């Protein structure tokens, strides 16, 4: 009798988490605000206080599909395990776990030039402590892109949320870069490039 009760309890717990998993999927996949993603406190409101556990389960499930739940904290990411308060203020997104192939990027409407330009702008800003003057970024982009596209591309990166610009024409990394770009991996990859791979012309 006792075993049956325990089994019933386990089954209802499983059903409960399955329901929460579905709800989390709906919340995270469908865009409901101007910006994609869901704030931690919204998840807590809809899923309950154990939402970090639900998100962990969803993340493990999405791994098979090459997707992941990415957490973007306000300010610098915590060095230790994040507190519930930090998680509440963070924003959660579904992103690709792996990378895209050049062919796949064409389908998403980004040209190789656009991606190279974005890589330059982000790398340059990271190397300058997260802030670089628009003139400096434009000068660097002019090296790789036709002059008439430099301004257009920079404006496009700003509109898409990758970069932000202040009234002094200083460029910063914006929310989409923090959500989509592994900044450390980008810098490491750039630094790891050897002379043989570099442009010959």
């Amino acid at each position, binding site marked *: 009798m006792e075993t049956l009760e325990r089994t019933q309890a386990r089954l209802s717990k499983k059903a409960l988490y399955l329901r929460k998993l579905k709800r989390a999927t709906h919340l995270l996949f469908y*865009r409901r605000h101007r910006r994609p*993603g869901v704030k931690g406190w919204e998840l807590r409101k809809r899923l309950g206080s154990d939402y970090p556990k639900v998100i962990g389960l969803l993340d493990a499930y999405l791994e098979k599909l090459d997707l992941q739940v990415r957490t973007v904290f306000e300010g610098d990411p915590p060095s230790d395990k994040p507190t519930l308060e930090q998680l509440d203020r963070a924003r959660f997104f579904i992103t*690709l776990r792996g*990378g895209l192939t*050049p062919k796949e990027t064409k389908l*998403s409407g980004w040209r190789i030039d656009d991606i190279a330009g974005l890589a330059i702008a982000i790398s340059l800003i990271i190397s300058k402590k997260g802030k670089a003057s628009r003139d400096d970024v434009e000068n660097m982009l002019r090296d*790789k892109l036709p002059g008439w596209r430099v301004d257009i591309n920079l404006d496009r990166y700003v509109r898409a949320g990758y970069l932000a610009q202040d009234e002094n024409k200083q460029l910063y990394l914006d929310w989409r870069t923090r959500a989509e770009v592994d900044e450390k*991996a980008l810098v490491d990859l750039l630094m790891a490039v050897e002379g043989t791979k570099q442009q010959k012309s």
Partner: protein
Amino acid sequence: MSSRPQKKKQGNERLQRIIDLSRAVEERGLDPFQVDVDDLIAVVHEYFPEWETIDEFSLDAEAVNRLASVIKLQGEWVSHRSTSLYTDPFLVEEKLRKLSRESLARLFLNAWHPIVELEQISSYSLIEAVKYWQSLLPLDERWTKTTGLKTELGAASRDELIMQRIMSEKAFTEELEVLWRELRGKVGESQKILYWEFVGADTYEETSRRAYMTSFLITYGYATFEVHRLEEEIYIIPFDKPRSLVGKKQSVSVPVSVSYEEWRRWREHKHD
């Protein structure tokens, strides 16, 4: 030894320089360690006993505030250098310059994990759509405002086009040659004629048409201009044969105003 007003003036200038320097570091992202804060604090300290007015104290406070911002930037600089993200900016620039666009894009794709999302219509946008729909006028009301006059379809004759001034009675080159012959006939022994004497006609419309055609006489090498700048006179000199000057001589545009006022003045002068 400098007098007190002189020292105040000197101090004022030095504080202003400190503010400008600190602001430049802050706004342009320069290396904050290029500012010797100790040295500048000593300057602020040196001139502080001289200040008396509110403006002077405000300037002093502004300088101290700016220096505090520089110290904050120095702190951030140090903490950034200690993070794993720190890389020498010059090294990064060097790498970026040397890499091809394709290599840069491929490299970036390994660090880029785009957001996956599904777009859907929200209740807010549905309400907006209903509001828009309700504010629209019925179709028949909208169409009455935009429809034009109904006309029968049919072919227009050449005479009708000439009447409507869509098509000229003569072919363009034919008309040009007629004007050229007229020009050659009108010039006397001097082989030239004043511009207004040639283009001027009884009506302003005809004058405009002649001025327009004359510009083609010049462009196509049937005639040329002789401009007397001091007298402000322009003569037209016809050629015996059309000359093609394209590529042989640098062409110069001569703007000639043929306004209604000028035409009226010319006409009055002619009748006098």
